[in-house]
């Protein structure tokens, strides 16, 4: 049996912080009084997210999600909800654009502190088929914020 340590790329992908969000997702469950909600799934691999937001005066007052799927999609959702509370809609959409840039391998985005815990997902950019997992909750967000 091969007992060599996992490759650096893999260790970068599956960081502690990602597994922590996967196993102890923040803001998971239904949101009372949601003003916006979007369900998205990835038909290819079956990741699912149901994102619910309460928006008032153009500010995201609260956000929760229900979902199931791989560690990347679920950790991304959990980290995203942490960041979104009390942001304006336009700030949230800017974050979505930064997240997308980080997935495209943009190194400045990967160092952008505004992305918080999400920077742990920078390694996903090296795994093209998994980028859609990381972006699923963000796509739900941009869908939900469409006027």
């Amino acid at each position, binding site marked *: *049996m091969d007992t060599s340590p996992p490759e650096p790329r893999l260790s970068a992908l599956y960081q502690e912080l990602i597994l922590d969000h996967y196993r102890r997702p923040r803001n998971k469950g239904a949101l009372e009084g949601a003003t916006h909600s979007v369900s998205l799934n990835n038909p290819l691999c079956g990741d699912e997210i149901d994102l619910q937001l309460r928006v008032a005066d153009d500010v995201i007052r609260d956000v929760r999600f229900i979902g199931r799927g791989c560690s990347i999609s679920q950790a991304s959702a959990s980290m995203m909800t942490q960041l979104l509370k009390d942001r304006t809609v336009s700030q949230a959409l800017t974050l979505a654009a930064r997240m997308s840039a980080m997935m495209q391998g943009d190194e400045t985005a990967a160092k952008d502190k505004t992305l918080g815990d999400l920077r742990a997902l920078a390694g996903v950019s090296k795994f093209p088929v998994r980028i859609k997992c990381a972006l699923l909750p963000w796509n739900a967000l941009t869908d939900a914020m469409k006027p």
Partner: protein
Amino acid sequence: MLDAARLRADFPLLERRENGRRLVYLDNAATTQKPEAVLRAIADYYRTTNANVHRGAYSLAIRATEAYEAARAKIAGFVNAWAPEGVVFTRGTTESINLVAGSYGRAHVGRGDTVVVTAMDHHSNVVPWQILCQEHGATLRMVEITEDGRVDLSDFGTALERRPKLVAFPYVSNALGTVNPAAQLAKLAHAAGAVVVVDGAQSTPHLKVDVQALDCDFYALSGHKMLGPMGSGALVAKPELLDAMPPYHGGGEMISRVFDDHSTYNKIPHKFEAGTPNVEAAVGLAAAIDYLETIGLERIAEHERALAQAAIEQLTQIEGVTVYGPRGHRAGVVSFTYGDIHPHDIATILDQDGVCIRAGHHCAQPLMRRLNVAATARASFYLYNEPADVTALTGSLVKAGALFGYVPA
């Protein structure tokens, strides 16, 4: 067991390294690699024989037609079809089933009728029947499965009490490897007055199939899952049924005479082969059948059974791994989960070691719901897999366990 290491040398793609590692290809239920003999047959066809079939009056076109019809006869022999004209070339199992739904189904299933499928069917043997039933006001009845992943015969019997017009089921489950008692199911369905459609996508490559012994009415198969080219496949049917069926696609080749306002149709199987067919696929599939017959389907089945058995034994020794499907008689398909590690994460981690498995719902969402999982990881074997491939699978899985904290790193 087969001398898989020697057979492997017949497959150019398997010489490749993936992510710096020896390629361990364990996604054979999705598609198989192609031996040199098949690649050569396709190239030779274009180098020496290519012309449009059933049209030209010149020698080249006659040779192309002969090669195409010889491939049909080869498939007919391979599954013991009722007659070569009962073999319709299609793009694969999905198109074959859609042909039955769109032609036989459209003509015979009406308001208030029932079509029966099983909860272990692939989407390709569910969705065409859903569409048909929705359009014709018929009911689709899905037969339940047992806890260990077999067709629930008692529920199958209950479903037959509705006297369905048509009963469809897979010979072998793509997600679980279950080998269904196809002849018994066909007999029961016939006794209830139904026509029987067998999805043979996962059986034809791996077992000796005899459609006359099964006594089904329609049998669908895919060439790419049995060493043949993508886009090759066939519908094998009782000729008298095909003969009475309305056409599926309209166009050239399928007609006899075309008047301004109507047409008369060609004889079977040509009635169902509108347009220029994929001759390269037919010729490649015939070469694949030659390759398989040289080895022997019984020996292939035994080889895969041994690999699956070894995989199940090794996987179940890893704490936290659950293997799905029947413990006894099964094909070379092993579906599993590992604790809370999502199958896509498993697949990504295994890929770094050059191990290709499938992760997902395997186009069997009704089945996944009944197993109460969103997805599984699936390893599926073929004649070129070796015991070392099983060891590579389990070794890599232990790494996944380490990354997710199941075993010490």
